[in-house]
């Protein structure tokens, strides 16, 4: 299993979605689910049949400078297929990434050379276009349950919400993170906070999620903040447009599609 943070995952980035109605989830939450059941729910929240949206990404560098990107994102099959197309600023307009098979296959396209390149898996832990989200964070679909062993630390307050506190340890030692801590809302099962630990067991990054809205019956976090606590850099993402369960053909997720602008 790929080492993965399955960040986006929860991130559900532009992608989030829930397969169960929010009320149903809330009802089942009263039954004191096991850690594994909670993780499965968290995974399901992050999956959508399909979606199309626009996100506004702001990178705040270590030196305090800001760079803003506008990105159109298409997803299909529970985030198994994703296509990112940079719309702004002008210097990156048309740059595109196609991620398939849970982010295991990545292709990039740069308009200046009109060339599509197949990227090997070693790039997955790297910052995607300089942001604090790695390619793996952005491209992996939600499968915490498959990659991590979960233990329930209890319920705690997180950002004013009652949350399940889960500690995840990877089955595979090759995983990008040595440990992941999740605080998932007890009613919607949306992760509101995620802490990522590096190979030395040090806290590396923290993701905070806010402004959760129900869109097309899908609980959708509209605002994400990923902070790299070791580099002192931060990336925020705000969903400015999102539409779920739309008809996206498989042709939308091919390398040929990368060139369309």
């Amino acid at each position, binding site marked *: 299993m790929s080492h993965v943070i399955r960040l986006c995952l929860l991130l559900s980035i532009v992608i989030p979605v829930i397969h169960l109605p929010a009320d149903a989830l809330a009802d089942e939450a009263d039954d004191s689910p096991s850690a594994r059941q909670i993780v499965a729910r968290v995974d399901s929240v992050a999956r959508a049949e399909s979606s199309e949206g626009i996100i506004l990404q702001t990178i705040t560098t270590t030196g305090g400078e800001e760079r803003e990107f506008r990105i159109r994102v298409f997803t299909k099959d529970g985030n198994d297929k994703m296509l990112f197309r940079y719309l702004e*600023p002008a210097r990156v307009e048309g740059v595109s990434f196609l991620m398939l098979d849970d982010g295991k296959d990545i292709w990039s396209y740069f308009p200046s050379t009109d060339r599509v390149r197949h990227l090997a898996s070693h790039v997955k832990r790297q910052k995607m276009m300089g942001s604090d989200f790695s390619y793996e964070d952005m491209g992996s679909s939600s499968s915490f349950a498959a990659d991590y062993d979960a233990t329930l630390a209890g319920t705690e307050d997180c950002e004013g919400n009652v949350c399940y506190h889960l500690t995840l340890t990877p089955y595979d030692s090759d995983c990008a993170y040595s440990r992941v801590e999740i605080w998932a809302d007890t009613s919607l099962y949306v992760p509101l906070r995620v802490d990522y630990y590096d190979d030395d067991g040090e806290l590396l990054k923290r993701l905070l999620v806010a402004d959760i809205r129900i869109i097309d019956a899908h609980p959708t976090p509209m605002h994400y903040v990923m902070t790299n606590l070791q580099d002192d850099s931060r990336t925020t993402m705000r969903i400015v447009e999102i539409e779920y369960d739309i008809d996206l053909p498989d*042709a939308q997720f091919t*390398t040929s599609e990368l060139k369309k602008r």
Partner: protein
Amino acid sequence: MCRLVVTVTLATLLLLPRAWGIGPELSGYYQYQLRAGAIDREAYVQDYNRLRLDISAQAGERASFRGDYVYQTFNGRTALPLDELLPPAIFEQLPPDAPSAYEFENEHYLDNAFLSFYAGRFMIRVGKQQLPWGTGYAWNPTDLFNVKSLVEPTYEKRGVDAGAIEIPFHTAGSIRAVFAPHGTIEQTARLLRIGEHFGRYDISATIGQLHEERRNFLTGTTSAERRRLLGGDFAGELFGLGVWGEGAYNDWERSDDYAQLVLGVDYTLENGTYLLGEYYWSERGRLRREDYTVQEWLELLFGGRKSLARNYLFLYTSYPLTELIDLSAYGVGNLDDRSLVLIPSLSYNIAENVDLLFNLNLFSGDEASEFGSADHLGFLRVTAYF
């Protein structure tokens, strides 16, 4: 006359989309580059201003238009004498009517202007367009249309007048056919590429033919010669490393046939340091520098070939110093005459749409070698996108 051409070109680019009732989108960049070097131990400077105007428009759901217009002016030392660029032994053999200098000339041109039509999964593109080919980074043996710059392999390529049809299938598979009109039907370039994604690999095969204009610098004549190409390429992953390869066999009508091969590997370290290595072998290359000919040297300078020797190694590394600053270095080594060029560079995203690039071209080798005959250079380039 020049102004008239510019005006008509820009008016066409701007008005065509409007005629379709879909106002054009304007983008592009302004680029300034300052180059400093030395000739006869005397320092010189040269700069250029380059404006690229990109105009694009959507012509309904199934068609789009794009046009790029480039205007570039050079100032300062715009003529570099050949005795500074060639080894003395080669320079002495130049025929009397050979060029005396390499000149940078002001120019303006339509770099790309094409219509794209989409019908289902098919894509048809007609007009002047970039035609990248192959998986190699510094060399592309299967590319019939472009000659990359070894010191800047990712710089944009000029468009080619052609018609292209692409039929994608599965996720990364496609059939791509290109026709580039040239004189007669027989001389029209044609290229076919079939690619598919197997496991973690993209694999493709290419077959093509064109009539290539070849200038004989010794006689001052130009003639076309048929070139047939059979090649293939792949890109994938092996033991965690990115790997790729590209090879081609060139069948010439009159000249000697030859094969070319590229093998590459890359990896990214945990700290973000990116490493890339590429090996290039060309059967037509020389094993000894004494065998380089005047014709080959002039083709290298004025286009038509990008190497003289048989074996090369290209190394590249980059490290993100901050989110906005990258340090990198290229190295191109001629393994046969043991010369090399080293290009350390620094790029800085100064503002949202402004990039700064500084690099050096440091040459090493004896004066008869490919890279040893050149003088060190420095570049400062700023690009503002809009």
